[in-house]
């Protein structure tokens, strides 16, 4: 099958407007007979389910948590980008588009990214209308902050809880429809297979996690809004339940997987403290705006950081990247931290950490406050205290979180941070309509591969999730469903449903009857270590080849020596985990194959064989300017390539110097 991204004709800035005015429509009476299944209730899923129900479609929405409000979008901290140019600092739709393409190291599709930038202002308006309490200035206007990879202030925020507030907005829109009976909500349900009939997605098999019962659900269309797969690394900033299973099942039923190896390693996370660690916690990128990152100039310097004088500190990001300084994109900041730690300059007990220091800005803010109050003779202690209060208002919850986890007070001592897996740019391959290679099946938000290329800029995930859910899918789904108005609801007694349920049930039984000696977590940790060591921040042909062999061995051992307690017909969290880890193992292999195939460095994908003299990622546009879309075959994968054409941006080696 050849890949058709279905990008509309015409000038970049006119494509979406023209598309919207010419896309086929479905009349209200027909909408009432068309059923849409939405899997996942995060920003993309909740926004899509609510918006489609408002339009009149019959919607069912599924989530594995006990409430749709708990989807992992809730944990996003820093903010959401929008090209509003409220700060009058030169922002525009084109600039957001340009920053995103460049930030993604020229591996994203122009038309999709431009549409995202174009829609971004509507998202802010929609959220404000829902009652999302964004931060405001004293005059009542919306406030903005800076984020990485850009030189304008376009990030809207609600303290360090922006994801929470946006999700609660989408959740309330969703619950409003639930209350009106237009959306049927299935919490504590996990999708375990997609049902494909005559080549089209027609339903899902879901497991009621409380009773263990398998349920068949028909839909004219299936939307996967199931997030990313960072948990393949075991340790990541993702929630414990975040998983690849829904998209992986879809992949095995014919949906191509796009750029699976493109993983974002976020530079500012709280370092690992021991073997017991179950997850990692992010410290928002917005902190980099108000903090400075440094390590001692002398390797192995064990002094209290406050005792290390200014001239003995290496502000390595400011040194290497004077134009962007601490605000370089995430991939660049992460690699720079790794470089310093590998060279022996790391700090803390593990020596795998760098400092993020807020002293300077606390003093700067303090002086501003002192000036406002006319305190011309304020002491340093007074200035520091006032500055501390300003920082507290901006990031109080993050500082508290840091203190809770590490036992150290970040107002007094600089934070210790280290990169951790945070987001996956890869995902199901979709066309301009967000449709996968299986007709009728869509992927939205982090679950698709579409907008961030090889590196996502901060505050752009929330933007994309909501853009896809509120403003893209309500239009693009019409292009498909307008041709489905004659399709009557298919009975769930159809053999495809029976067959899919049977295979799900067999797999669950298989997992329960291996009766081996190792727990699910044992395998998950083992897989995670292989992935982090060989398919993490630095990758090489030798390491990846070895990883593939090791992952195959883990898979073999998993299916022969796993122990899952309990039964399939009860609430059984270990069984849920087992199924997810089984899928992660298969995905891990594909990620390594993809990373091996792409013998260039781009964004977060750093191949040691492809770097500049000073250690920067070196792209190879001549040979790798494409999206890798992998087709599942029983024993292997076939690679399909979508060539990337840059007609509106001059493609260049990325520089933040």
């Amino acid at each position, binding site marked *: 099958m050849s890949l058709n991204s279905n990008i509309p004709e015409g000038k970049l800035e006119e494509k979406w407007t023209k598309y919207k005015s010419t896309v086929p429509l479905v009349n209200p009476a027909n909408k009432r007979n068309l059923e849409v299944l939405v899997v996942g209730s995060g920003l993309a899923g909740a926004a899509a389910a609510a918006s489609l129900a408002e339009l009149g479609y019959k919607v069912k929405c599924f989530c594995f948590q006990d409430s749709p409000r708990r989807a992992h979008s809730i944990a996003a901290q820093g903010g959401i980008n929008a090209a509003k140019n409220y700060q009058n600092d030169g922002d525009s739709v084109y600039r957001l588009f340009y920053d995103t393409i460049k930030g993604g190291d020229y591996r994203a599709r122009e038309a999709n990214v431009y549409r995202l930038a174009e829609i971004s202002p509507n998202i802010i308006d929609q959220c404000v209308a829902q009652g999302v309490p964004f931060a405001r200035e004293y005059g009542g206007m919306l406030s903005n902050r800076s984020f990485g990879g850009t030189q304008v202030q376009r990030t809207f925020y609600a303290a360090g809880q922006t994801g929470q507030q946006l999700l609660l907005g989408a959740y309330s829109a969703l619950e409003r429809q*639930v209350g009106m009976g237009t959306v049927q909500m299935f919490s504590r349900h996990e999708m375990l297979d997609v049902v494909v009939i005559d080549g089209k997605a027609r339903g899902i098999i879901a497991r009621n996690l409380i009773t263990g019962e398998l349920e068949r659900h028909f839909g004219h269309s299936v939307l996967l809004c199931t997030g990313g797969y960072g948990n393949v690394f075991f340790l990541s900033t993702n929630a414990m339940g975040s998983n690849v299973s829904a998209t992986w099942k879809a992949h095995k039923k014919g949906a191509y997987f796009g750029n699976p190896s493109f993983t974002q390693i976020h530079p500012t996370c709280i370092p690992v403290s021991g073997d017991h660690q179950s997850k990692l916690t*992010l410290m928002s990128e917005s902190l980099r705006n108000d903090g400075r990152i440094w390590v001692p100039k002398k390797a192995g310097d064990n002094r209290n950081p406050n005792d290390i004088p200014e001239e003995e500190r290496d502000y390595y990001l400011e040194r290497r990247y004077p134009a962007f300084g601490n605000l370089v994109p995430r991939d660049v900041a992460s690699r720079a931290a790794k470089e310093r730690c590998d060279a022996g300059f790391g700090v803390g007990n593990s020596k795998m950490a760098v400092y993020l220091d807020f002293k300077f800005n606390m003093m700067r803010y303090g002086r501003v406050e002192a000036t406002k109050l006319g305190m011309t003779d304020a002491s340093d202690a007074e200035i520091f205290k006032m500055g501390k209060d300003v920082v507290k208002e901006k990031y109080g919850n993050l500082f508290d979180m840091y203190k809770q*986890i590490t036992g150290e007070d970040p107002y007094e001592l600089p934070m210790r941070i280290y990169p951790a897996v945070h987001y996956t740019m890869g995902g199901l391959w979709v066309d301009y309509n967000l449709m996968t290679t299986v007709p009728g099946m869509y992927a939205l938000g982090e679950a698709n591969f579409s907008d961030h290329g090889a590196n996502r800029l901060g505050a752009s995930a929330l933007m994309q999730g909501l853009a896809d859910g509120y403003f893209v899918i309500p239009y693009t789904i019409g292009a498909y469903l307008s041709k489905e108005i004659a399709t009557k609801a298919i009975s769930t007694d159809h053999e495809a449903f029976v067959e899919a349920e049977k295979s799900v049930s067999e797999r669950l039984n298989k997992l329960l009857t291996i009766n081996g000696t190792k727990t699910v977590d044992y395998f998950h940790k083992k897989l995670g270590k292989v992935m982090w060591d060989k398919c993490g921040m630095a990758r090489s042909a030798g390491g990846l080849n070895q990883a593939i062999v090791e992952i195959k061995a883990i898979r073999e051992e998993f299916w022969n020596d796993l122990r899952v307690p309990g039964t399939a017909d009860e609430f059984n969290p270990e069984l849920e985990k087992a199924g997810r880890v089984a899928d992660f193992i298969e995905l891990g292999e594909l990620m390594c194959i993809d990373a091996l195939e792409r013998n260039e460095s781009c964004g977060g994908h750093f191949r040691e064989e492809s770097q500049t003299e000073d250690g920067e990622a070196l792209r190879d546009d001549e040979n790798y300017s494409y999206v890798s879309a992998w087709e599942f075959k029983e024993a292997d994968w076939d690679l399909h390539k979508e060539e990337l054409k840059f007609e509106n941006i001059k493609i260049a080696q990325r520089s933040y110097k």
Partner: protein
Amino acid sequence: MSGNMNLTLKVWRQKNNKVKGSLVDYKVNEVSPDMSFLEMFDVLNEQLIIKGDEPIAFDHDCREGICGMCSMHINGRPHGPKDAITTCQLHMRSFKDGDTIVVEPWRAKAFPVIKDLTVDRSAFDRIIASGGYISVNTGNAQDGNTLPIPKVDADIAFAAAACIGCGACVAACKNASAMLFVSAKVNQLAHLPQGKPERMERVRAMVAQMDKEGFGSCTNTGACAAECPKEISLVNIAAMNRDYLKSNLIDAEG
């Protein structure tokens, strides 16, 4: 494990909502003070599985204090001995070697036990579905800055909106009242101009649904606010009561 604390846990075990449960003792050794409370449960569960026992079911997801899924009643307090944090943010350094720790599920009629420490909080979703929103369809919004909102109002709305819906307020209350949860949403929207048109109808509908779900009455003991991991203020309840009263007066006048 890497630490040196030895603890005794008394954990509520209950197979499902049809059978009775009881407290069961477990010894956990070599606990590190850097571990989180839930990581200690992970380790205990690993040991139980290897021994051939059933692991303890508990709700958790983000493990950074924001999703609201974790819900353990620890030594008689929702989310344990420290203020303003969730169970997942509680670390073992808050306990000492030799401690006995009692862990129970949320206790409330409206939150029936599903298994062990896991309860059903879907009543909260139904309360939101009854009116905890602003009725605005996608695409209807005006520019966000055409409606200036004084910072002080935005801050009050934000403080109320910080609720994570974990249910600790209900678990803490001797009447299992959901007033703090409901009032946080009511007050968030009441403080924003966008929320004004439906203000009276909203409070009426949400309170009616709350009563229908079987939550108890509020007797102003304040335990809810004291145990709230997000420090949602009791003032919200007072404000909601005022709105609720007003909404009934308006209703009476037709």
